[in-house]
């Protein structure tokens, strides 16, 4: 589609325009250099320099706990499906998070389609924000080409000094630009500056791990019995932070929560994690991923191997959250390097 410019002096006006009739979510600062996505009403609250947030934006599309339906057993097996939604703008999504949302879209649109996700997703407007440089050393976005925009947004902002270059990717984005009246046409100089930034970025962002994209899946196929998994298992506390913080992990459990009359209630979907001891425990007490190392191996394969077979897509976005959040310092880049070293 086309592009427009937004002068930084108008950014405040844009947020003001957006909050008028919908919830606006953006990164806000916490302490100790951490950030989270939260509802905002003014530009001042937003951290434009945020590193990836503690939880990824999936918490809005796939809430940690959501009610899928209400049941009433006094009415036979009557069930009423429900989706809690409100018009929401997600502002300041980095390219890694946009890649994560695209992965979730792929999974939940796959058969059987997940209508709760798909209905909710329609009510979101996604506004991206380009990273001109690395957030920190945990990121591995460049090895997956996720340091550059690859769609998945309505509008995408690139900081070019006094103004943002704004890529319009959808009709929704187009309408927003038109209605707000805050954007101005692109100038040849702005086009030029965008190209220059992208050139600079090719120098700043280098593949963080010495491996080609097409060699990643074979690496995991070859290293299934590797000792690296045993070593990682010895460190892992099985807290599941890596999967909860991952923008593409979507495993969930379903539980029924009755009212006190025990006849009516809700069916809830809650996040689950393959890292938990009981995740792969089945009837009879058998656990087919009893060792922590087996569970970590599973997690890595669910990012770099299995989705390649099913979706021709790696499900790691390079955001670095799993490495950043891990108390045991199980580091994605170190794991890769150890696997590469062993398979050499």
């Amino acid at each position, binding site marked *: 589609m086309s592009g427009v410019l937004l002068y930084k002096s108008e950014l405040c006006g844009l947020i003001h325009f957006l909050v008028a009739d919908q919830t606006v979510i953006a990164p806000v600062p916490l302490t100790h250099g951490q950030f989270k996505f939260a509802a905002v009403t003014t530009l001042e609250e937003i951290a434009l320099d945020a590193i990836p947030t503690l939880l990824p934006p999936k918490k809005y599309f796939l809430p940690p706990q959501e009610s899928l339906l209400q049941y009433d057993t006094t009415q036979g097996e009557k069930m009423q499906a429900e989706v809690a939604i409100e018009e929401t703008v997600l502002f300041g999504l980095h390219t890694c998070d946009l890649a994560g949302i695209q992965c979730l879209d792929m999974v939940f649109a796959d058969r059987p389609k997940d209508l709760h996700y798909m209905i909710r997703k329609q009510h979101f407007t996604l506004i991206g924000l380009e990273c001109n440089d690395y957030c920190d050393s945990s990121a591995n976005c460049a090895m997956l080409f996720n340091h550059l925009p690859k769609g998945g947004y309505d509008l995408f902002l690139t900081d070019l000094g006094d103004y943002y270059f704004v890529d319009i990717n959808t009709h929704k984005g187009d309408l927003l630009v038109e209605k707000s009246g805050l954007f101005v046409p692109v100038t040849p100089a702005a086009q030029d500056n965008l190209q220059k930034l992208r050139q600079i970025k090719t120098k700043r962002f280098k593949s963080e791990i010495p491996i080609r994209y097409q060699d990643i899946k074979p690496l995991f196929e070859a290293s299934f019995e590797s000792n690296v998994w045993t070593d990682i298992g010895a460190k892992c506390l099985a807290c599941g932070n890596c999967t909860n913080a991952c923008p593409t992990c979507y495993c969930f459990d379903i539980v029924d929560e009755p009212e006190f009359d025990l006849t009516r209630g809700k069916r809830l979907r809650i996040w689950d994690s393959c890292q938990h*001891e009981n995740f792969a425990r089945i009837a009879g007490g058998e656990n087919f991923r009893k060792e922590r190392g087996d569970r970590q191996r599973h997690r890595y394969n669910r990012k770099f191997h299995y989705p390649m077979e099913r979706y021709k897509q790696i499900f790691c976005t390079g955001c670095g959250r799993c490495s950043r959040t891990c108390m045991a310092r199980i580091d994605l880049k170190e794991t890769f390097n150890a696997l590469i070293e062993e398979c050499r």
Partner: protein
Amino acid sequence: MSRPTVAFFELASCEGCQLQVANLGEELLAILDRIDLVEFRELLTERPDGPLDIAFVEGSVVNAECEARLHAIRQRSELLIAYGSCATIGGVNAMANGRPISEIQAEVYGDQAERFAAARVRPLHQLVPVDYFIHGCPIYPDELIKVLKAALAHLPYNIPDYAVCVECLLNENVCMYEKKVTCLGPVTRAGCNAWCINNGNVCYGCRGLVSNPNRAGAEAVLSRYHLDSRLIANKMLMYNGALEPTDE
């Protein structure tokens, strides 16, 4: 539907968990619609002696008197629910288990020590079968309600068997270790929604250890933060002093 007969009892404890129930607010009205509450020391004066459908027992077993009382309650009741750390894992009372009983008796009661019989502190399940556990010091009200519903429906209640870290991250708290503060969240089982950390405190491990905790891994984390594992072990014993190998 007839309302099940329910009673609340206390062994060695502060009765703080009973107060948590009394403080439920409007939820308590919904509960009282569903149950026939016959005994509850913090709320009622009656002490009937009939059969019960559900007995909630708070507190740990610290002497023969507690033990006899617990067996009597178990005999009277169809279901027995251990609630609060003292009842489920021994709790703070079990700090006494780290020293000889006679030494502690002498310290607390002086020359009157022999008048106060005491034994090793034990949680309820080490003496009688327990149908449901509600961990925590004090119990987390949301979990009490979940367990009560499960008990009323005769369904199992699955206690989360993962670390408090899970619920802490879902609340997007900055990790206590980032703040250079020791926290027992990584080895303590969840179910409290990281209640303490959400309110600026650390996790004290009041819900007991996750099953199969990675001890060596946890020690490696502690040493990275230059924390002495004995310090953590000591913190852990604040609530977990009655842990038996079979409890894990």
